[in-house]
Structure formats: C-alpha cells, structure tokens
C-alpha cells in the first residue's frame, strides 16, 4: 500500500518529470527524456532578417500591391456618384428658409426643392443616401441610449424600457414609457426626400424610390421586431412617441403597413449608429429599370425635401447622395491609391535594400564568417 501510494505521489510530484510509468518502489532515474521538445531542439525555421533575405519580400509585395491598387482605383472611378447639399445654411440656397426657421418643435414640414443635373447617366441600381456631417452618432452616451430588447419586440421592455434610455425613457409629462426609447430613436432623421426627373420633353416624372431592402436583412428579421399583437396601434397604446417625433412609431410609413413600428427600415437604418461624425445612410434604392439600361439617364433632376431635421445646432450639413456601387462598395479611391502607394514604397525600399545588400552584405558576410 505504501509502495503504490508512493508511486502515485511520484507522478504528480513537483518536478513533473519524465517518470510516468508506475512500477516497483525503486528509485527511478530522474534522467530527463531525450525528446526534441524537452531538450528544446524542435526543428525550426530560423529566418535571419538581413537585406539579402528580406529583399524578395519587398519586391513581391510591391509587385502584388501595385496591380491590386490600380484595379481598385479603376473600379472606384467607374462608380457614378453625385452629392447634393441641401442644408441651406448659406443664404441663397433653396432650403435656406427652412433651415433658419426650423426647429424640432415645428409641426408642419417645410418643403424646399433643389435642382441638379446628372452629366452622366447612372446604370444599374442606384442608391440614394442622405448624408449628415458633424453628427456624432458615435458619441458614447448616444450609442448606448437604446433598448435592444424593446426593439426586439419584448413586451416587458416596451412597458419598462432599459435604464440606458435615460433621459429618453419615459415621457416627462405623461410618465408613459417611450417607444422606441433612447436618444438614437429620438433623433431619428425625418427629412423626406423625393426625386423627380425633369425629362427633356418638359415632363416631370417622379423617380420610383424603393423603401424596402435598405436595412440589413438580419436587422429587419431578427434584431428588430414589433411586439406581438394584431394591431400595432393597440400594442403601442400605453407608450408615448419619442419627444422629437411627429408621428408615433406605428405610423412611420403610412403607405406600407409592413414597414411600420420597429421594423420600419428607415428607422432600422438610423438605429445602426454611424462610425464617424460624417456619414451617409441609405435612404432609398432606385432599382434598375428592366426595360431600359439606364436607371437614371443624364439630365436635370429635382430633389424635393420635406425639411424636418434641424442641423444648425451642431453646424451639421445634410446631403443627398446618389451613387451606384461596385463589388467593393461605394466610390472611394483611397484604397486604390493606398495600395499603389504602399506597393511603390515597398518596391522602392526593395531597391534600397538591394543597394545595401550589394554594398554591405557581401562585405559583412566575409567579415562575420572569416573563411
């Protein structure tokens, strides 16, 4: 009994060494195992960073990056994009009146129109964005100010929103919970943009703008859900609309009952807080016209804005952007340029290393290793 327990001790002893097999209680040799691992002799690749060794890597990187960069740059340049700033902070701009007179408390929308021309036709699906500048949607307290479980249709959270929503949690007057609660929802972008094509023949046709499909599919189906109930207005009965809102959440899209409540796509898009203070958000999609090749032919267009969203308090700017997209997203020449630049630098450094290698490496080798 003693012997066996002794062996057991042996094995989980402090020096967890090689003796792992049990046996008689004779003193086993403590000789360490001669394994590559234990003797630290694992086969290893030992790169030595010298100009000569590293040089190919630089050239390879340069040779790969430059074509990629060119490809990206070309792709980005092929994207059609037009930005219309309709902030109206400058006098003389079409929306100046609206911007100066408008506050959150105004109930009637102020309508203004902006005319613009497309010099080149837009092909394929055209994406209509609204863009805001200087809007810090990424502010720490702002980002937190939402209740995901309320937005997911949780009845309990509907009645009692999360504390994170403070101070947009309950209505200060009625004491009813706000749905959707929180600062993000409260500051929902509520300008209405409409696009009209002024055809050369003088007719003005409204460009069909698709409201659906602008939000992430997973957002619309998984993250955002209306509380269970037949009638949305019934479900939201005991709640209050956010303070800055003109319409309650179940009336966001009068035209499409499926697009109301928390699953309204404009709302969902807004709730996905932007990363940077200057951002754009997808507003509508102009689907490719099946009959003609051009979605938006070149020509004159009119943007009709129901100006509801004040930005003067933070010196913000509002834009409407029309853009086609490519496989790599919207227009952004940066990445292409970056690739070209980095590739060139690598190539250049490669050349420098080549010189260094020729001038010093050979000498050094003979010095280090006197053969």
């Amino acid at each position: 009994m003693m012997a066996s327990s002794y062996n057991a001790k042996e094995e989980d002893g402090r020096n967890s060494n090689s003796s792992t097999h049990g046996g008689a209680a004779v003193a086993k040799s403590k000789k360490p195992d001669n394994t590559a691992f234990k003797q630290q002799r694992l086969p290893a690749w030992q790169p030595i960073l010298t100009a000569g060794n590293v040089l190919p890597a630089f050239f390879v990187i340069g040779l790969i990056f430059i074509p990629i960069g060119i490809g990206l740059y070309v792709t980005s340049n092929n994207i059609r994009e037009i930005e219309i700033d309709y902030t109206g902070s400058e006098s003389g701009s079409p929306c100046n009146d609206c911007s100066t007179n408008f506050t959150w408390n105004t109930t009637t929308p102020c309508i203004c129109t902006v005319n613009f021309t497309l010099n080149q036709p837009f092909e394929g699906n055209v994406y209509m964005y609204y863009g805001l500048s200087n809007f810090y949607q990424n502010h720490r307290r702002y980002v937190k100010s939402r209740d995901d479980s309320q937005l997911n249709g949780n009845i309990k959270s509907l009645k009692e929103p999360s504390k994170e929503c403070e101070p947009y949690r309950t209505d200060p007057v009625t004491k009813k919970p706000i749905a959707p609660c929180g600062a993000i929802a409260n500051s929902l972008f509520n300008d209405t943009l409409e696009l009209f094509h002024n055809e050369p023949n003088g007719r003005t046709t409204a460009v069909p703008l698709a409201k659906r499909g602008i939000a992430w599919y997973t957002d619309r189906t998984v993250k955002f859900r209306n509380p269970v109930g037949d009638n949305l207005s019934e479900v939201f009965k005991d709640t209050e609309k956010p303070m800055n809102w003109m319409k309650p959440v179940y009336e966001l899209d009068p035209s499409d009952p499926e697009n109301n409540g928390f699953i309204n796509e404009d709302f969902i898009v807004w709730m996905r807080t932007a990363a940077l203070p200057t951002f754009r958000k997808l507003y509508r999609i102009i689907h490719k016209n099946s009959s003609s090749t051009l979605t938006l032919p070149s020509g004159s267009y009119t943007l009709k804005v129901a100006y509801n969203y004040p930005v003067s308090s933070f010196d913000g700017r509002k834009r409407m952007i029309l853009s086609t997209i490519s496989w790599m997203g919207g227009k952004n020449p940066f990445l292409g340029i970056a690739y070209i630049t980095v590739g060139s630098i690598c190539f250049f450094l490669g050349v420098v290393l080549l010189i260094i290698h020729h001038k010093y490496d050979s000498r050094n080798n003979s010095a280090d290793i006197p053969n």
Partner: protein
Amino acid sequence: MARERSEDTGMDKASKAKRQRKKKPKEHKTRTVHANILYDRAKGEENPNRHYANNKIKTTKYTVLSFLPKNLFEQFHRFANVYFVFIALLNFVPVVNAFQPELALAPVVFILSVTAIKDLWEDYRRHRSDKEINHMDCLVYSREEKRYVERYWKEVRVGDFVKLRCNEILPADVLLLSSSDPDRLCHIETATLDGETNLKQRQVIRSFFDLDCDFDPLKYSSIIECEKPNNDLNRFRGYIIHRSGRRDALYKENLLLRGCTVRNTEEAVGIVIYAGHETKAMLNNNGPRYKRSKLERQMNVDVFWCVIILLVMCLFAAVGHGLWMFQYGDKRPVFDVLSPEGTDLSPIMSAIYLFLTMIIVFQVLIPISLFVSIEIVKICQVYFMHQDMDLYDEETDSQLQCRALNITEDLGQMQYIFSDKTGTLTENKMVFRRCTVAGVEYSHDANARRIAMYQEIDSEEEECLSHGGTLPRRDSVGSHHSGRVVLRSHSTKSHRRTGSRAEAKRASILSKHTAFSSPMEKDITPDPQLLDKVNECSSQMDFMRFHRQPMSQLPSDLSDIIDFFIALTICNTVVVSSPNQPRHKVRTRFELKSPVKTIEDFIKRFTPSRLTSGSNSSSSSSLNRSSNKGCSSLLPSPSAESTLTKLNEEQLSGTLEHTFTIDPPSYDGKTSGNPEEGELRYEAESPDEAALVYAARAYKCSLVGRLPDQVTVELPHLGKLNFELLHTLGFDSTRKRMSVVVRHPLTDQITVYTKGADSVIMDLIKPSETGNSKGKRQKKIFCRTQNYLNQYAADGLRTLCIAKKVLSKEEYARWLQRHLEAETAIQGREELLFESALRLETNLHLLGATGIEDRLQDGVPETIASLRKAGLQIWVLTGDKQETAVNIAYACKLLDPDEEMLTLNADSQEACAVLLEESLHYIQAKFLCSSGDQSTKTFNSNLEPFEIYPSLSTSSSHAAHFLVHRLGLVIDGRTLAYALDKSLEDKFLAVARSCRSVLCCRSTPLQKSMLVKLVRNKLKVMTLAIGDGANDVSMIQVADVGVGISGQEGMQAVMASDFALPRFRYLQKLLLVHGHWCYSRLANMILYFFYKNAMFVAIVFWYQFYCGFSGSAMIDQWYLIFFNLMFSAFPQLITGTLDKDVSEETLQQLPQLYVNGQNSEEYKPYMFWMNMIDAFYQSLVCFFIPYFAYADSDVDLFTWGTPITAIALFTILVHLGIETKTWTWMNWLSIAFSVALFFTAALCYNASCPTCYSPSNPYWTMQRLLQDPLFYLLCTITPVTALLPRYFYRACQGTLFPSPVQAGRQLDKLPSDTRRNILSLSRVKMGSPLSPEPHFLSLNKPKDCQKSASKEKQGSVLQTNKEKGQKSPLVSSRCEKHPTDLHPQAPSEPNIPSYSRNSPQLSCRSSKDCLDETLQPSDQSLSSRITSTPLVSRADSIHLNLPADRASQSVKYTRSSEGELCSDQRVQPAQRTLQAAEPGLHTAL
C-alpha cells in the same frame, strides 16, 4: 518528515507561533514533558502535555472556509490586481462607466481565478501529502493494552512512548530512553535533514543507560524539562528529573529528530518531546524566497511610464471633451445625451467624468495579463531547465533544481560570480597523495600515477556506473526484514518530506553508495619505502612486546611512524561498518563496565573541594536556574565519566595488563592480511578523514572498530590493538584541529593525538630544547616538515599536520577535572570548552604531515575560462590557505600565468590601507606608463583592457570607464577583514574590480557574505554566489542569485539556494545558454507586451478625435477586453517560452554572446520608447487606413470597428513574427490558433443573441464582413503598411550593424563543420577580452593568429619557469616572465595623483633587478622566521609580479627607499609600526 514545502510562507509559521503564544501565556522558557500514560485515564484537562502541538501536521494554507478571503487577500498584495479591481469597480458608477460593468470584471476575475485555482491545486497537493504523512504508522505504547500498538502518526502526542524499529522513520522528535543495542546506542541516518549520509550515534539517556532489562514504560515516572521548540538542529538542552529528585542532563545526543531513519538498531524506545510542527525538522522548513529579478525591476519602471502615458492620454481626452462640449455652447445637439438624471452637464464636469471613463477604456495599456504571462513563461522556462539532459548528472541521478521560480532571467545578466572552492570547483573527494613522517618525505609516486590513471578513465567509469547500476547496495544483503522494500520506500518518502524530491532521491541514492568511497579514494598504493619502515617498526614492536621490553626503546623515527599511522587511524570520528552486515558496526568489545556509584565516588575522592566550588561558580546561569541547583556535577558526558572511572580503577588496582588484550584468533575469522579486511567500510563525516583512514589501511594499519570508549586498530604483526578512547575533542572551525585522548595499549601511556591545519598545529608544537641532539633533531624535523608542507601547498594539496603528546596520568586527571567543569558549565560552556581544549593541545610533538588532493571537478578550468570570456568576473572565496588556493586557482585557470598577481597580506588596519593605496597607485601608474609607451607597443592592442559594463554608467556614474586590467588579486582573510572595514571598502573595491580575478583565502562565511553584499551594493552589479557547504549559505543568500552545488557536504547550501546544480561545470550551460535564453525571451516578451497594449489602446485613442472625445470605442467591448486575454495571448507565450535567438552550441562556443544579457541589450530603456513610438505609428496606420477606406460611407460603428480589431490582431501577430527568431510548429500553430480563435469567437458572438450585447449589438456583423471584399483588402494592406518600417529597420540593422547575437545566428545556419572551423578561428581571435562594442570577428584575422602564437610561446617559457619555482620552494614571489600587457587606455580618472606623472621615468628598469630584489627579502624572511606559510612572508607585501619579457619595456613601480614618490610620506608611519614585527614592507617587482 520535514518535507520542504515550497509554498510554505513564513507568515504561516508566524501565525502558528502566535497562536502558540496565546495558548500558553504562563509557559516561559522551557517545556515540561510528562509521560502520557500517567494521565491516560484523565484525558484532556489534567494532562500537562495537552498544550503542546500534536503530531498532526497541516501545511496547507487554506481551509475550505478561509480559502476565498485568504487567497484574495494575498492576491491583492500585488498592486496591479488592486488597480484592475479598482477599474472594474469604477465601471459600476453609471456616469463614468465605459463597459458593461459585469463584463469589465471579467479580466480581473479571470486573472484572479487562474491564480486562485493554481493556489488551490497546490494547497490540495499539500493537503494530500499531509494526509499521507499523518496516516503513517508507528508503534505507540498503550496503557490499556500494556503493549505497543500501531497508531497513525497524527495520533502521536507529546509524552507518548514510541517504539522504533530498524529502518523506521521517526515520527516526531523523540528522546531516546532505551535501545536494543548493547551500548545503548541508536544509529540514525540524517540524510533528510542535512544530507549527510553517515550514521549518527545517539545515546540513551544516562539514567536509563544501565537498565538491564527492557525499558518498561509503566515504570517511567520522570519529568523532562527542556527548551522550547526551536529550529537549531544541533542543539538540545534539558534535563530529566527522576522521581528520586535526581536530575540528568540531556544533550542533542539523546534526541532523535523527526524525519531521520533508524538504522542498525533493532529496537529503540523513546518519549516524544516535540511533535508535529514543533519538531526541529518542521521548524527548519523554510519556503522559497521571493526575489525580484533585475528585468522585473526594469519592467516596473516601464509599467510606471505606462501609467504616466495612460494619464496623459486620459487627460488629453478629457480636455478635448471639455473643449468639444464647450464649442456647442448652449445649443445642445441631439446626439449630446443628457445625463441619466436629465441634467445638463457642464463641459468641465463632463471632462472630469470622461477622465475616469477614459481610464477604464484605456486600462489595457497597463498590461493586466503581463504579470500572469510572465509567471507562466517562467514556469515553462523552469520546466525546460529541469528537463535539460546536459544539466543532469547521472552519477548522482540529480538534475538542476530551480528553487526560486521568478529569477530565471537573472541568470542571463550576471556580472560577478563568487565561488567557493572546496566542493564547488573541486570534487571534495579527498585522495591521499603523499605524506611526510618525521621529516622524511614519502612521495608516493606510484599513488600519483594511480590517480592520474583514474583521471583518465574517469569518464568511462562514470558510464559504467550509470549503465550497470551494479553498485553494491549495502542493505540489500543480510537484511532480515521481510517488509524491507516497504520500509525502503518509507525512507525514500521521508527524504521527500525534508527536501524536494530531487534531494530525496539524491540522498537515497547516495545512501546506497558508501559515503566517500570511490575506488580512487580507497585504494591507495603505499610508498614502498614507508611500507618497509612500517613493517620493520611493527615487527620490532611485536618483538618488544613479546619480550616485555618497554616500548620507549624503539628508535624515535620508527615510533614516529607507527604513531603517525595510529593517529591517522584513530584521530577521527570514522565509523566502521561491514558490508556483510549492513550498517552494523563491527565490534570487538572488551567488557569494562563500572557501576555508576564508582564514578561519583571517584569524582568526590578525586577533587572533593574543587567540585563543590566549581559547581557553585558555574551555577550562576540565569537560563536554566532550576537545573543548576547542585546538580551540575551530574552533567559530565558519559565518555568522560567512564574514563574517569577507568582511571580510578587503574589507580586503585595498579595493574596495567588488563587493558592490553590480544584478540582471540577466532574473532570474525579475520587475521591481519586477510583480504576480507579490505571490505570494511568507513563512514566519515568529512571526506578527508576517510581518505586518511584509507591511507593508513594501505599501510596495514587499519581501523576495525570504533565504540564510544574504544577504538580497535589492526596493525601488522601486532594484530588487533584496543585503544581505550578516553576523550575526543571534536573538530571545529575555530580550533581547526581535533584530538583524541587514548590509552596506548602497548606503552600504556595516555596519549593525545592531534590532527589539524598546519598553521595551528605548527604553532602548538613544543619548542625543542636547544643543545641536545634530540632537540636538534626535533628542530630539523620541524623545518623539514614545514618545507614539505609548503611544497604540498604549492602543489595544491590540502595539508594536515599530525602531532602527538604523552600525558602523565596526573596531568590528564588534572586536565580532565577542569574539562569536566567546563562541560558542566551552563554559561559560556563553549568558551570554557575551547579553553580546555587549548590546555590539552599544547606542547605537541610533531609526527608528520599529509597532503591530500582535492581534485578539480571535471571541466572546471574550461567552465571558468568560458565564463570569463563571457565577461563574468569570477571571485573565488575559500577557507583554504593561500598557497593551496593560489595553486588551485592556477589549475582551474582562474589565475592566468600571463597575468600579474597582486597579493595583499596585511597585519593591521593601517598596513591594509597602505597596501590598498599602493596597489591603486600601482595600477594607475602602470596604466599611465603604458599609455606613455603606447606608440612603441602597438602590438599589444589585442590585449587591450576591456571596459566593464558600459551600462553601469547609468546606474553609478563613478563606475563608468572603469577598466579591468589583466591582474589577479589574492587577499587573505585577515587582510580582507581590514579591507572590508567601512573606511577601506571603497579603496578595496577600486582595486578589486580593476583586477580580472580575485582570490580570497582563509575567509570566513561571514566575510564571504559581506564581500558579496559589498560588491553587489556598491558596484550595482548582478552577483551570483555558488557554493556547496554550510559555510557558503550566507553568501548564497546575499547574492542576487544563489547556486548550490548538491555535493558531498550536505544540503544546507542547496536549501538556501535559488538553483541547485549537481556539478560546477553545469554553471556554464545554466548561465550561457539558459540564462541567455531566459533573459532574451523574457526581455523580448515584456517589450512586446508593452508594444502590443500600447498599439491596441492607441487605436482607440485616435478614435476619440472622431467621436467628440466621448470615450466611445469602435471596438466592441468584448473584443477590447478579451483581446489581450485570449486572442493575442498564446503566440507570445509560445515565443516567450521557446524562442531561441542563438542555438545552444553557438552560445556555449561563443561565450561572448553572454555580454548581451549583462549589458541588458535586449531591453534597454530607450527600447521601451522605441517600441512605444512604433506602437503609435502602427496604431495610426491601423486606424487611418480603415478610416479613409470607410470615410463618408454608410458604415456603422461596429461594422467599422470589427475590421480594425482584426487588423490590429494581424498586425500584432505579424509583429511578433518579425521578432520571433525560431519558428517551430508550435509558433505556427499558436498564431493560427489565435486567428482562428478570433474569427470563431467573433462569428459565434455575432450570431448568438440579437439583443444581449448592448450597446454594440453586433449581430451578424462578422458574417457580413466576411462577405465583403473590402475587409480582406484592408486586412492585407494595413498590417503590411504598419510593419513596413520595422521590417525594413530590422533588415537594415541585420545587414549594416549586426549585433553579435545575430552573427551567432548566422553561424547557426552554416553547416556544422564549417561552423566548427569558424569557431576555432574565432576563439583565437576572441581570446582577448571582448571590447564593449565588439567588432565581431573583424577582418584582421591573420595578424591575430600570429599574435596568439607568440603568446603561446611565451606561455610555455613561463611554464618551465614555474616548474623550476616549484622545485625550489624558496622562490617566494616568483617574478615570472610574462608577455607584457601594458595597455593603452583612455585616462579613467582625471585626478590622478601627481606622482604618477613621474612614474614614466621611474618605471623602466631591467627585469633582472626585479628578480634580485624579490628574492632577497624573501630569503631573509625565510631565514629569520619560518612560518607556516613562508611562501608569502608575513610582511605586508605587495607582490606585483610584473611581466618582463623585454627589458626595456618592463615597468617599474617602486616605493621603498627612493624618496621621489609622494606616497612615501603617507606610508612611513605604518611602515615603522610594521617593521618592528616583520621584515619591512616592500614592494617587489
């Protein structure tokens, strides 16, 4: 059962002690032990022993309940933990919280729980082993059953009677009451306590000595009073009070300590005195020390800088936020959310809140996982060091032990090594080499040849031993215990309890061998001449005995010879055992027992008056008041009593014959010359004792038995002789000698044989009466012996002198009386005993001297040479005499014949000061002179002195530019004592550190530790102390790293050390390879850690510029928190554990690479900042490339942040890749694992719960990103851009300024034979000390070769010189020819004394003069006075042995009669004082 518990803290013990104190306030300084059986009925209250700790041991730190609070409390001692908890708690404050509070706790909880689990596991293991120990069985007497019954150890209580059988382990500290041994002895093996494998004898208490029948516990009614539990293994005092009121003293000889094993004794009974935690073995259990490594200290500075950076960043963000708020003024934008209370925050308030928030967000900058990672890496490093086959010693089956887990990297940064000599550099296997008897030298040439032969076959022999494993196991034969194997395992286990397992195994293996008995030590080839003489002598004696002639008629030279061998044989403490009867002493007892009464009678009759007075005077002790009341006369040691008795009897009877007995021939069937005789084994406490006994046996003068009162010696022709052992005065380090008093069976004289260090014995030799021939002869012998002693010392032999003295009975009785008084004295007993010994050991008659060789360990010279090349300064501190030490130093290449040697011997403080001053001046003068002659001696440039540790300039400015010359310094203990004085220590250090090697002889343990402390504190260098014996313990403890050699001198050094090695030569690999690796791995890992955290945090910091400094993070909080902990944790651990910058072979062959660690080149302060800058650059890239790529797009916060996280991860991993030097599959795997882990975790996280992870709620983000080509494009370009500068820099550095380490790596890549060629070439080149900026293997190779060749030639010339010097011992200070090594240097100290300007003119003198001058004074000194060490005349001398290969180049520095030197004036007073005693102070050149 004192198992070394590595985790035991002192706290534990302290608390225990406290508890004890609380329990027994009324108990004072003694403990009273009653027998338990008297109180068996009344269990509990009445039992007077109830307060004492029971034998149950509990070494666990925690209980189930106390674990959590106690463990947390301990963990919060680490400041970092408190910091992180603080931050986590900060998250619970709503205004400032940055993360979900629960989530913020995760890392802290994770770290704490990992540590807690580790602690818990360790504690559980302790608990299990405790349990196992507590449930071991032993026999305890039971009153009910009237017999001994089996009990668990934990049930043993103080006051119990335990019965011990052979090979059992003692369960507690037991007072021996009875033994089956007829001599009332009990033999124990104490290997588990002190590592000594020889058997110790323990004696039954005097009062129970004469019990004829077995000890009956029922009759026991005495009370024992003894000291309180303490940890002094070598002390036990107390007394036993019998019912009759009689008191008997108790000594450590009566105490059997827990953990020891009973040997050679069938049965023994004892009473438990100390149990459980109060046993001496348990009290001796010290946990490992906590040391903080240099690297860690450096790291802590940078952690501090990180804190500063963190605060600056937070402050910046706070100010930014305030300004950002301020610019909006009153018109609050919609995105500026009010505080939860709905109040508007002023910019200043929100800035303050933001500051706290930022601290939380940026907390990662202080690397929480760094501390844990370092610990893990260190554990792995220790594991690999343990596993290293090269550090495994097959002979002793022991390997490296790391006892301090947290200073592995210090091994790579050592600058000074302090080494013990005996047992560390040498084997501590003593081999008898030669001897001189009565002035005649017996050179033992055959013996020398034999030893040389052993040296040659040594390696083969080692192999044989290890493979065959056929070493005779002493206890495998003849043991009649059926359960022997079980018991054996008992014993092994017991070893483990005291020490670590490794020690235990070592001990158990050692116990299988006979201690100190390799064939080399045993088989001594006798010198034929001496052998003849011995034979002649003994035959004559036989003849004389037969004819009843007095032995004194023997010619004195013959009698000296026989006495010499008798002294060798009996003047020791060697125990004889026979291999056939394991651990059973061989006995030839002649009955001489006398009743106790006679002793008392005799004492009373002998000195009635003095006895009483003596007892009165000695009873003034304050310590043991009660014990002294008139009972001190009962304290004499048994042997003394019995000898007195015997004396008494003889005086009464007057018969002399009966002590002389010829053994019956039937005894053991052995007669002289029987080959079986050789099978007797000698177990000695010190190896030289055994060596001498074996030597004597070679001359047929063999020790055949030893009993406490009698030694049996077998002599040729005479047969067995019993020497009645009257008294033994044991060896101690102050007296440096031991003596035995015996009654010589042939002459019937009371004879004292003394053996000891020559320096002491020679002073105690009786001055010979001048005039008569006998006196002349005596003087001649004395002189000759002295000469031979010097010669032995010069050969590096350990010398011992043997002397004897004949006492008349009256003299002896007188001495004995006073000695007994001394022994019985309570106060100052040690001093009195010392004086008493001094009285006996005077006026000795010199018999002869022996030279014992202590062989150098294998590979010591090579190790020292390569350590030296590694830039380590090696100081050897030894207790040996100067000549021996110097010769060993030469042998082990510590001193180089090429070097000059500075010898400092001073007699007084002033002289020492003068000497130091002079040496300093000499060094300066020499250095100036050489710089003046620089132009003519350009060829010396290869020997240029090297600057020590340029890094020092940062730590101590005065140390900068200090040059190490090619000088050796030899200093003796006395001078060292003066030099270590406060007033001189600076000067001493200045001298010592400019010397390449320092040798301190005759130094005490205290001096050793003082020296280490001095060097460590004053020079601010990393010190390593290595030693094997108890005398090195203090030094080992003081040094930054203590290394113990698990050698022959027990375990004390190992116990005190941080690392324990089996052999000295393993130090080379330990330092050069493992030290280097550990250091460079850890240094790189720490730097990487700082970089990694800074880089990651900085990304978030840049974002603050784009979120209104609101403390927002685009990186999901989960990623932010687990990034360090999980995603990026493993690769760096693998790299930190496995990375090898240079291969093992190259590191060992190019010791110069070690300088890398010494100068902290892997981790310099600027590197931290470089890394920080790089981190900021990389974070800028990692932030702005995604920024511009996604600028003005519809990307949302976390869809943008997730790629950044991925990019950061890639960048960090590739960065690690650039820094990784060796890629094994584990590196690849870990990196792949990290990436896979991140993506898997992200995918799972982003798919799991659409509402749970507020506020980021990154549902399906990763999945969408993976479909986005932009993501891949970003992940490609960003790491490349971020790492481009570093990669480019590394490549350029590798080509333009390759470090030595890199050159080493390039060597690794070459095929092995090419490499070997290069290394052999480079060794030639690098033979000269490494210059601080090594132009690694520069181009001027051919020149070097020439130079070295010429150097060698000079070296060989020198060799012959040296040999000559050895032949004539009169050449005191060898003025050897050295290649001139005068080094051109930059001036080191601007304020060079004025005289040095003169020195160039004075400096040149011919070497001939120098020779003459040296010889003359030393001749004088020799003739005027023969000291034990005439080689170095006792004068204060500075032997500056200057090289003089070219007359014109020789440098002369002299300060004697020529008055030009301004230092003269200062010297004068000291000189005058010294001149009186000694030949004048001189400086020989």
